[in-house]
């Protein structure tokens, strides 16, 4: 064990190294570590928030779906009711229309009957006139006997 100036050299080197380490090595690394720690903490917090929001969203979505189902069921039942109503209305309308058509047809028939009766009455008058002429064997002045004929016709 020879002690010599190496002792001093080593001490000086040591001091220089520690100074360099303290000035240029330690602080940047510690800063980076602290910053990363902060970043990770922020990231974790954000992830937590995101998860919470997702849960809320899911709940909300479920609620909306539930509501939509309910409303759909309501709409369907209303539509069914409305359909039944429409069918009923159509039925009554059809019946009414049928009745109306029937009534119109009957009126027409009655009119026809009346017309036929008028015509028949005219013919009957002619035939009666001709018959009366023949029976009386004398020619009657149509104009002179007009009143008589009219009276006859009205009585038929």
């Amino acid at each position, binding site marked *: *064990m*020879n*002690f*010599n*100036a*190496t*002792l*001093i*050299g*080593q*001490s000086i*080197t*040591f*001091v220089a*190294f*520690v100074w*360099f*380490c*303290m000035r*240029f*090595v*330690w602080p*940047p*690394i*510690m*800063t*980076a*570590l602290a*910053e*990363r720690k902060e*970043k990770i903490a922020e990231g974790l917090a954000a992830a937590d928030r995101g998860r919470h929001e997702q849960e809320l969203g899911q709940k909300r979505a479920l609620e909306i779906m539930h509501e939509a189902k309910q409303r759909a069921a309501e709409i369907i039942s209303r539509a069914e009711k409305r359909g039944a109503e429409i069918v009923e209305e159509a039925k009554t309308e059809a019946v009414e229309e049928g009745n109306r058509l029937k009534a119109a047809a009957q009126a027409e028939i009655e009119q026809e009957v009346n017309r036929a009766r008028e015509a028949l009455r005219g013919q009957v008058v002619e035939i009666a006139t001709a018959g009366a002429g023949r029976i009386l064997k004398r020619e009657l002045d149509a104009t002179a006997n007009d009143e008589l004929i009219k009276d006859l016709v009205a009585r038929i």
Partner: protein
Amino acid sequence: MSAAPESSSEYIKHHLTNLTFGRFPAGHEHAGQWGFAHSMKEAGEMGFWAINVDSMVISLLLGLLFLWLFRHVARRATTGVPSGLQNFVEWVVEFIDNSVRGSFSGRNPLVAPLSLTIFIWVLLMNIMDLIPVDWLPWLAGMAGVGHLKVVPSNDPNITFGLSLTVFALVLYYSIKIKGLGGFLGELAFQPFPKWMAPVNLLLEGVSLVSKPISLSLRLFGNMYAGEMIFILIALMYGGNLALAGFGGLLQLGWAIFHILIILLQAFIFMTLTIVYLDMASQEHH
């Protein structure tokens, strides 16, 4: 190697001799001239103003390697996903930071970088022990360098250089934080009552001075013993084939075990430094 070692003792001595540069003493054939010592005895005779070039250069290179590596990472430290090297450096830094937080109660921006420097530097110096003992001296011999002690922490000059600097810091902070009176009072007025001040002074003085000595001798002793065992194992390679094979196994086993010692000694040196500085920064009662 300067000369092929002939006997075991010469081989061992050769491995334990530093490459010392200094002034040859009076009575030497080159008296008064500067040059490299040729033996441990010559190195001793050069007195204090000589320098162990091998220890100095290797420890300097290792320290620069440490600083370059960590500075390299520190300069491009990102807050994003760290690369492999950055990850490793950050792991080491956090480990040191935790150790300092655990042992050092005050606030001192010096302690953590100091601990990091001590831990990595001492670790790197110790790791040189794992390189087979003959490789680097053989290379140096090829280059014409007579002696080369590869493990800087195996040189008491290096370990005392570290521990005395730490001791200076301990004294500085003791006086700065407690005041000169407080520091001396701590030495003189405990553990016994004030009237026994001389006894207290003796006890506390011994315990104070023993700090740097134990710090450096612990590291030096462990490394010296480890290196010695490596050298003794390496001697077996000179025997027959079976002995050499057994020596190889022994070397592997000892190297694996030595990894533990290397780490442990670096860690102990660092932790004790933190503890001493903590004691220096705390007010005792």
